[in-house]
């Protein structure tokens, strides 16, 4: 038993958890609004979009690839699904079905090009980001969609309860989708055979190929899953914003990447856990939320986030280097 505990305390997740807990305790002590149900619910709702994308991107990073195009995929999926929903009564199921089909198709397009052209996935997905986004704006002329169907505008509101101050709470669409996405990703990576194959591919692609893994199939699955998650995230975001603006999601891709990497996923593949990704997303969200609650001008938000990322990646790299040195001696 002590050995498992020892291994746990050495892991990246442990340190990240410690930082998150200390930061939360500090904020609880320093402000009286941080640890309120209201604030935590708001936090959950507002991180939904980035969190769901982080779950998808984690799988791609574990696989040893990278995807930059997911914000463009999300924009396309959102726009097409809600354009159809505006005119035809397709209902919730229809909205998700259309969005997910578009997302998965875009993901498969990425996978096919990476596999056929054999250039690095960063370059392919930068190109496809431009292709998806450019075509979307060209065809739609950048028009907003504001008149959404009533059921969509209302969202979901399950298990309502009222706290002592009389504020109503309920499980909303954003929180539900966020939890489901992370749970699905956890099941995929840890409880299925395919998940282990994805990890193996990320660890050593050539070895995995020689062991007889179906590389193209796995690649399709991973990028398709990323597209699927992008679609889910886009619906969550559209419901929250109560409108669709095709230009608003682009530019968020590197922030999501930063959150996942903060959670310990390696860009060279084979490493990364769902728990780590959750903590990475949480750390950035709590940091931003805390700075606002502490009364720091929101103009300084990004600066602190950037500094935390720099500190985290430097600390991780240094500790890894020390461990390697320890192994060598």
């Amino acid at each position, binding site marked *: 038993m002590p050995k498992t505990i020892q291994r746990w305390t050495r892991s990246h997740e442990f340190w990240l958890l410690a930082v998150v807990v200390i930061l939360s305790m500090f904020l609880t002590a320093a402000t009286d609004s941080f640890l309120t149900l209201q604030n935590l619910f708001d936090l959950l709702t507002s991180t939904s979009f980035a969190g769901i994308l982080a779950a998808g991107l984690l799988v791609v990073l574990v696989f040893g690839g990278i995807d930059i195009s997911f914000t463009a995929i999300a924009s396309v999926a959102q726009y097409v699904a809600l354009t159809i929903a505006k005119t035809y009564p397709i209902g919730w199921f229809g909205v998700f079905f259309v969005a997910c089909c578009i997302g998965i198709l875009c993901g498969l397009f990425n996978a096919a090009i990476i596999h056929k052209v054999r250039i690095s996935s960063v370059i392919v997905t930068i*190109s496809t980001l431009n292709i998806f986004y450019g075509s979307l704006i060209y065809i739609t002329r950048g028009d907003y969609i504001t008149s959404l169907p009533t059921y969509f505008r209302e969202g979901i509101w399950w298990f309502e309860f009222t706290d002592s101050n009389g504020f109503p709470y309920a499980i909303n669409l954003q929180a539900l989708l966020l939890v489901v996405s992370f749970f699905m990703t956890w099941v995929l990576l840890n409880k299925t055979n395919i998940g282990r194959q994805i990890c193996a591919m990320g660890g050593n692609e050539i070895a995995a190929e020689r062991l007889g893994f179906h590389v193209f199939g796995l690649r399709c699955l991973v990028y398709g899953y990323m597209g699927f998650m992008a679609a889910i995230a886009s619906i969550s975001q559209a419901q929250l914003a109560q409108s669709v603006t095709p230009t608003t999601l682009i530019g968020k891709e590197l922030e999501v990447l930063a959150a996942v990497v903060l959670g310990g996923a390696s860009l060279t593949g084979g490493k990364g856990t769902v728990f780590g990704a959750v903590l990475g997303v949480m750390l950035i969200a709590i940091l931003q939320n805390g700075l606002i609650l502490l009364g720091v001008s929101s103009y300084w938000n990004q600066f602190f986030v950037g500094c935390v990322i720099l500190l985290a990646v430097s600390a991780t790299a240094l500790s890894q280097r020390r461990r390697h040195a320890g192994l060598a001696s």
Partner: protein
Amino acid sequence: MKPSANRSLISRFVRENATTVTLASIFIALLAVFGLILGDRLLSVGTFQSIAFQTPELGILALAMMLALLSGGLNLSIISTANLCALTIASVLQYTIPWGDAGSVLWLTWQVGAVAAGLAVAILVGLLNGFIIAYFGVSPILATLGTMIACKGLAIGLTRGNVLSGFPDPIVAIGNGTFLGVPLAFLLFIVLCVFVSVVLRRSSFGQKVYLVGANEKAALFSGIHVKRVLLMTYALSGALAGCGGLVMMARFNSANASYGESFLLISILAAVLGGINPYGGSGKVSGLFAALLLLQLISSAFNLMNFSQFLTIAIWGALLIGVSALRSGTGIFDRLFLFEFWRAKSAVSEKA
């Protein structure tokens, strides 16, 4: 034997500059196609002047990206470095009292000082990147992602997201003036291209950058001070990004923390299109230059045809995938492509 010697010289040139030759032939082909469609509207001095006005902003930033790519890395912080540099120059110009009268030498010195301060900031950001990458062993994407967000945050925090605008004439002239019909910014871009090319090809530092990019471990074992090379590479990349910032602020006559963010991924696209190996170790300035002109030609022609700029970026993305497919040789087009045929033929004749 003279003709065959000549031919082998040509084929050697083609082989060594495959990317540039490919891109130049695409450029000429597209120029012909667009020329047929648009006629005099495309083939005019005005069009080429507008291409020359638009190329430098993206071009100088792409040069900064290229250096990092050659060393086997990536520099995501170029845009925020450029903006931080531009804002430094802008605030020195706005918040200090001008030296001397307008037009005097002292007045010019004051502006040169402002630009120097901006470039110093850009080099500092580059050194920070290089230090974290080389001495802490952080992967370049992560390190520069962190500095990108931190620098942008610093710029937003200090300016509260505001725009600083209105600069003295000499600064504005860098972005909008011409010399013998050629935009000054384009001349600056050419000078920087030549400078980077000479550094890469003729200096020992440049050769070391290629070696580190090709195989860092081998470079280390052959006695190259890899850490110092990386530090200098990112410092130079930062300095070039700063020059990009100067051109941007001069063209818009204003500076802001979030100008030009769409250039970030496009600069990677341009560099890779120009034959820079995204894994490092190979690529030439001439290829990058050809790629930039090609991208601008498409942009200008589409603009004349009244297509939206978003269609242009979609086509740019498709172009990169297409050219990469050609280059990787596993694509379906390679048999159709004349150049491959020519290369195969010249290889055969060389053997004979």
